[in-house]
């Protein structure tokens, strides 16, 4: 059981010690990672994915339950503690959706009966239907992203989940974050999107490749986050209406 992970700070791009020396993330917590492009958000996520032991560019060290993870824990996909949803939007593997999910289930030591469940979940996150016999490479950005989310949620069911930007994907981002956070997981999400950023418990602010500070989401921000959720729902509904070829007559913003 993973109770917490600790990020021990290393060095930023200029070789200075990171301002934040230590961050502890407990299970059931959602952490955001924010900062301008090139500020090192993806590298931070990368360090956690590999459970870095001062062996990456940043020289950070990641502890699990306060201890160094074993080599096997770090590399064996069947024991893999970290599931990651990376920035890339499309699949490159030349195979069908069903075949791909079956192979991945085998890698993770999961029964392949889950394949249909993954496809079903993916379809609940995107408007364009995904079928088992589709080729991976022809899926749209939204379909690919939805399938990756469902795959991470069901097949790579790891206690630590890392998400590198879901906002631009054309999928239901709230549902996606909910599906991914599951029960008792540690979740980190890289995002520029206030809807997601304010949904988190805390956010790590990146600057010049280093962790600059950790901000706790205020109660006030949590209320704003709920308002933003409603705006987001509204946008999604409008989007569906337009997609279906309907006319948009009015919008109601009273309850926001």
């Amino acid at each position, binding site marked *: 059981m993973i109770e917490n992970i600790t990020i021990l700070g290393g060095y930023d791009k200029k070789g200075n010690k990171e301002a934040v020396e230590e961050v502890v993330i407990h299970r059931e917590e959602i952490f955001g990672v924010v900062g301008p492009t090139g500020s090192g958000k993806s590298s931070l996520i990368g360090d956690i994915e590999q459970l870095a032991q001062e062996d990456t560019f940043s020289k950070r060290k990641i502890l699990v339950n306060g201890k160094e993870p074993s080599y096997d824990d770090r590399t064996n996909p069947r024991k893999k503690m970290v599931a990651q949803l990376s920035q890339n939007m499309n*699949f490159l593997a030349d195979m069908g959706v069903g075949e791909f999910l079956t192979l991945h289930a085998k*890698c993770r030591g999961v029964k392949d009966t889950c394949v249909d469940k993954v496809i079903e979940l993916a379809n609940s996150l995107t408007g364009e239907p995904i079928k088992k016999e589709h080729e991976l490479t022809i899926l749209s950005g939204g379909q690919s992203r939805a399938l*990756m989310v469902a795959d991470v949620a069901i097949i790579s069911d790891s206690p630590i989940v890392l998400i590198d930007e879901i906002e631009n994907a054309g999928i239901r981002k709230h549902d996606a974050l909910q599906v991914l956070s599951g029960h008792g997981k540690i979740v980190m999400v890289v995002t520029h999107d206030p809807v997601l950023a304010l949904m988190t418990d805390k956010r790590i602010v990146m600057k010049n490749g280093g962790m600059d500070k950790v901000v706790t989401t205020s109660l006030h921000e949590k209320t704003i986050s709920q308002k933003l959720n409603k705006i987001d729902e509204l946008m999604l509904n409008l989007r569906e209406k337009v997609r279906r070829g309907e006319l948009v007559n009015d919008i109601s913003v009273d309850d926001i």
Partner: protein
Amino acid sequence: MKMIIVAGTPGSGKTAVLIHALKSLKTKNLKSSVVKIDCLYTDDDQKFAKIGVPVKIGLSMDMCPDHYAIYNVEDMLSWAQENDSDYLIVETAGLCHRCAPYTKNSLGVCVIDATSGPNTPLKVGPFLSTADIAVITKGDMISQAEREIFREKILEVNPKAKIIEANGLSGQGCVELAEEMINTKEVSEEEKLRHSAPLAVCTLCVGETKVNKKHHRGILRRIDGFESYEGE
């Protein structure tokens, strides 16, 4: 002298990964010399020169680059010795998928590009199956699920390989590769190949250009599997 032989398809990221690994050796005051073997053209010498390691290139032209590399091992080793290096690194194009350039006591490193498709490990042959280390590059461009499938396929071909997931851009995994270089053994006076060179030399190998069957000698194999030997 330790010898590291790095093979992998063109553009797989051999140089990018090596540059990070060699920088890491440098910080430990370990000296390396690099030889790049390619067929027709390379500008890798400039890339290695930038980080200040002695570099030499060898172009095999119309010869199999692995055969060419193997034939020149002794000379390369003595050149590295003259440079007072601890390591000889040989980067080879590894185009002929029937050969593998690794010798018994060298560290055999196969660099393989994760974006090249999950069946690539099954296609590349002995330079993967006889390697000590398989370095997977460009994992940053595919999903974690695709990475995991790719890794499994490599282990199907070479269950004993140590897999390093590296990134030639960020340098991820390259310190680990350098660590493996440090831990490898010294080469001996009489190195032997791990994998014997291809089946036979055929008429085409010695320059025959006529296509019709009647002009060919040696071990001949039909597409339906029928094999015969023509000649003395």
